């Protein structure tokens, strides 16, 4: 039986309409719905996977991208293990906002060492023909902002979605191994063992 289980919290941020919920749905349920509702507040889905011998529960947090939902989503940045900054390749404004998303995340997540925090950048909707953001532009931004890995994805045809999440997990695990900080969730003693029977009165 597997004894070590990690719970990894991965949060999807990005402008409204870039396809965060679709990416999550594609990854967890392998389905695509072109007419998804706007996300209100914060929702999450879990996905179990095994990475390099580690049993991992990936908790994927989907957030409301629209500005008016800001107060509903920001309290839940705390405790994230990885942040997927998402934009849509057919929407240059969503790309330009990446920096703001990064700032907002670092501010509210209360990340102690922001420069070491694992971000992954996703350029979604590559299935669309009229691109507004080129691959080079995106890669350059990633380079300049902390050498983040960049994946061009399509939730609609499943391009690169799983790969991107795998990378996110690997990043987190690598970081944790380095800091020896894999959450050893099974070491919590839920039932305190009775103290030894050698106590004085017995």
């Amino acid at each position, binding site marked *: *039986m597997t004894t070590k*289980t990690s*719970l990894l*919290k991965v949060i999807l941020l990005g402008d409204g309409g870039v396809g965060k919920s679709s990416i999550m749905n594609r990854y*967890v*349920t392998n389905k695509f719905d072109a*007419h998804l*509702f*706007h*996300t*209100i*507040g*914060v*929702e*999450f*889905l*879990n996905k179990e996977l095994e990475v390099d011998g580690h049993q991992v*529960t990936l*908790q994927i*947090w*989907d957030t409301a991208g629209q500005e008016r939902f800001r*107060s*509903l989503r920001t*309290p*839940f940045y*705390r*405790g994230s293990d990885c942040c997927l900054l998402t934009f849509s390749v057919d929407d240059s404004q969503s790309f330009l906002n990446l920096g703001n998303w990064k700032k907002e995340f670092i501010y509210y997540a209360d990340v102690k060492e922001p420069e070491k925090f694992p971000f992954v950048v996703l350029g979604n909707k590559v299935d669309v023909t009229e691109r507004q953001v080129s691959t080079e532009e995106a890669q350059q931004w990633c380079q300049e902002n902390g050498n983040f890995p960049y994946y061009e994805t399509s939730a609609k045809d499943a391009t690169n979605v799983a790969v991107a999440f795998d990378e996110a997990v690997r990043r987190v695990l690598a970081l944790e191994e380095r800091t020896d900080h894999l*959450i*050893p*969730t*099974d*070491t*919590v003693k*839920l*039932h305190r063992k*009775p*103290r030894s029977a050698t*106590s*004085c*009165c*017995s």
Partner: protein
Amino acid sequence: MVHVYNCHPFASQQIVQVEQEPGLVCCGGGALFVVATGGCKVEAYNVEQEGCPFICRFATMGTVKSIQHSKMGDYLVTIEEKNSATYLRAYTNWRHQAEGKARVGVRLLGHLLRGASVRGGVQMEIIEIPLSKRPVAVACCPVTGDLLVGCEDTLVLFALRRQNQQSLNQSQQILQSTSQNSSQNQAQSPSPNQNFLDFERSVILHLPKIEPKQVALCGGYVAVQMELEVLVLKLDASSDPKTQEESSDTKKTDHIDDQADFMVLPRHQELLGDVAKDCDIPVSIENTGLEDGKGQYTLSYVLFRRFTPDFFQGCSVEETQLHSLQLYPLYTSNQSVPLEEPACVFCFFSLPNAGYLYSLKGGVELLSTYQYPEKVLKAVLTDHLLHVITKSALQCFTVRCAAVAARIVDPYIDTTMKACPPCSMEVCALRIQLFIGLRSVCVDGSHVILLSVADTETPEEPERTPQRRRLKLKEHTLLTGIFLAVGIDPATTPALESFLSRPFLGRKWTISSPKETSPAGHGWNLYVVDSVSPLTLYQEMVEYSERYAETNPQAQSLRHLLSEAHLFLRASLLRTEPSEQPRNIEGEAAETLQTDTDAPAERQTAAQTDRQEVEEALRHNCAQLGDCFSRGSQKDCHLALPYYRMSGLSVTEVMARNRPLPSSPHTYGPGFLFYLKHFLFEETEQTLSQEAADDVIDIFSQSEPSQLVSVCASPSMINLSPAKTLQILIHQEDTCGVSVLLTITMATMMLCLDDLPQYTQLMERHAEMLLVYRFIEEPRLLLHGGVGGRHTHIRPTRLTRQLAKSQPGLLVAAMVALHENSKVQLEQADHIFKELGCENCLQVDFWEAMLMASSQEAVIQELLFRLVSIYIDRLTNTTSDTHLNEPHTPSRRRPLKSADDLINSCSHYGALYPWLTVLNPAHTTSSQHQEALYKLQSLLCGPSLSVGSVVPLMERLSEETLWGFSLHLLCSTRRGQYDRSIEKLLDRCPQAIIAYANHQLQDTHMILWWQKLLPELCNRTRAASDNSILLAALKETLVVVAMEMSPTDFLELIPDDGTASYFLPYLLTCSQRHLMA
């Protein structure tokens, strides 16, 4: 001493198919929640269904440290940890999380915005509850679903808010209108069963000196448990915030002073009620509710208990820690749950070696202390039982909650009408069921959920087939251990050893093993142990008790076991009000997922049948308890009465149950005799058959012969066989000597046998006065019913009827004595005489006799009036000049007292005025008529009768006859109408005038001699100068006037036309007398 019975409160056990080792377990609302060890996942199982099928699985947001389910609202609350931070979260709509694939909404407390739920799909939602301090313990209120969170030095109360669907829709309008897919939204209407929950921070209690370990909340009661202390507080909504602020202020300063001066040494303490505020834990209250209509909360102390480690021998200091804090509500069946506050609230907490159960409402009191045979890890209180786990056993102790509740529900308990075992009755262990390596226990309804984890050092043997044998073996070891613990070595006692070798896990214990045995070797198991119904357990206890009854029916254990069984039934009756549970919110949520919902009506009738069964069992149990107390010792024997009454058994049935076996030497118990006496002496409506009545006579002649007379006098005994009873009474007289009561009773029997000569002989054995005294002692010899102010009709006995015939004087004397001793009221006596058919004779004799005896003014006036009325009746109904012609006079018997007797012996009858003899006819009337006339005249001459009040009655009498005239004259004279009376008398009977004047015109009325009588006589003689009667009267008058007046005044009176010589002698006498003076 703790009784340990070996009952079978558990029917079966199931093993829940959990894949990963469970870490935390909790249950509620028919579901079992399992958090895998160290996991971030909750799995829910349905404990209501066979095999405990899996319901759903959902992820938590961090490592769960603590989990609780709230029945109200059907939500889960967790304390979680992630990346060294602690969170408090509530999980709602969890039932909609099938397979963990749906998206889960997350929001902060108060931000009630709906995502998918509002659009139609039902979504699980997590509410994050931010706290400024680290949460340590949580508790949900079973009454309201409110949430209490214990932090390091504060307790925070969150009120559960259920959002109204409509208002929520309105608040969503704006959001939806901006939504792109609004057209789709309208197509899907939200489910009406939606459970929109939110919490509102309503009160913060600051307890700066404590470190809570556990908290509990129930209907305004807040309990907090520290390592060695328990504090219970009560929060009340108050409209007056001022007083509360003041009190908390003073409290604070006081305590600060205390702390500055003294070092507080912990000592064992128990502070109940208001006194608990003297504990050194200051509490201040901070109201934070915004939209709370209730206003401010005030705080009062309810209970404080502190233990010191050294107080408990046999446990190390580290082991002396409190656990299992619980506040427990109990509703009674006439309450509508959950609208009302529970009738009772209990507080339970436990040390490793002892548990304590308090009742909080209506005065705090310690109900029971549970002495455990071995160290207890956790305890859970339920309606019927206290379940505790030790490392190796699940033990069930009885509880007294139902005894408390029963007394609240029914004020007639603890009277002669109803009974219930006392709250203080010692608790017992019903069952010790063995398990290996128990870790935790929780209870949902009739399901006890146990987690067992085998010690890793001693791995469990892998093969599971001979489970039964193994369990048996373990049980043997444990019982041996118990015997050893109480100082008995079973090895030295062969009987015990053979007892221990018998299998204890009886017929009722079935183990349904899982279809696929879980992989061998994992050392843990999650059991759902199902309790048998209270009725089944009750039946077993009855069977059990029968064994006691055979060996030693008077044993304390039998009574104890039956009392325990009684409380079981009471507890289920308290709870079996139909249709109270399914209508709760969580029930509705569950129904949407469960298709096997019956029609409510069917459920209701089923519940009613159940209730009838339990009620029937309770009657049966009461009968058995009645038997116990009826046969037992003197102590508590009076309880036989209420238990037999509650059993619904007839007195004949109770007698049959108490009939001793022909061979057995045992006689009737004091409880039975108490019951029987109560029945015979207090209850008058139930008549026993001859057989039963004879049995009663037998019982008393054997057990309490001194009561025989009273027993025979009971109206219930009217059918007894007189001959048989007479024999017993004669025997009684032979052994104990003659007594008046016994003689009267024997005479009554003779009467029943129609043996009048013997009857008369017996009645003549004693003086009438002695008989009267005994009638006062035992009025039921004469009167049945109506005793003790009951509404039953009073009626004469056979003896009374006979007395009316043969000894009317005795009967009247007895009735007077009974009345004067408050044994009978005047109206009741009237009724008796009416029944006897002597309203016009004996009843009048009774009234006359009452006048002689009574000293109550109201009664006297009433009787005087009645008698005047009766005398007038008699005068009008009899004719004055016939002797025997009295067609409708009901009795020819002479009255007991003649007028002369009454005048001589009764102060209310006055001596007849002398002038009446002139008016009364000599012997020309019937004696009855004459007696009535004399009596009436005597009353009118007497001092007590208020003449004014009888004037209307007098109008019925004509003045034509002389006797009639005499009565009217008496009345007008008594009313001071002398002038008129003189005139009338002169008109009708002038020969009486001088007698009248001599008697009446005295003192202040003397003046009437010359002012009225003399002129009147002068006038009348002038008109009829040859009337010798008038002339004689004139002469007599002149004599009197001459004596009383001065000569000049006298001269003035002499009429002008009179002959001087006629008056001269009187004038001379007058002058001479005057000169001498």
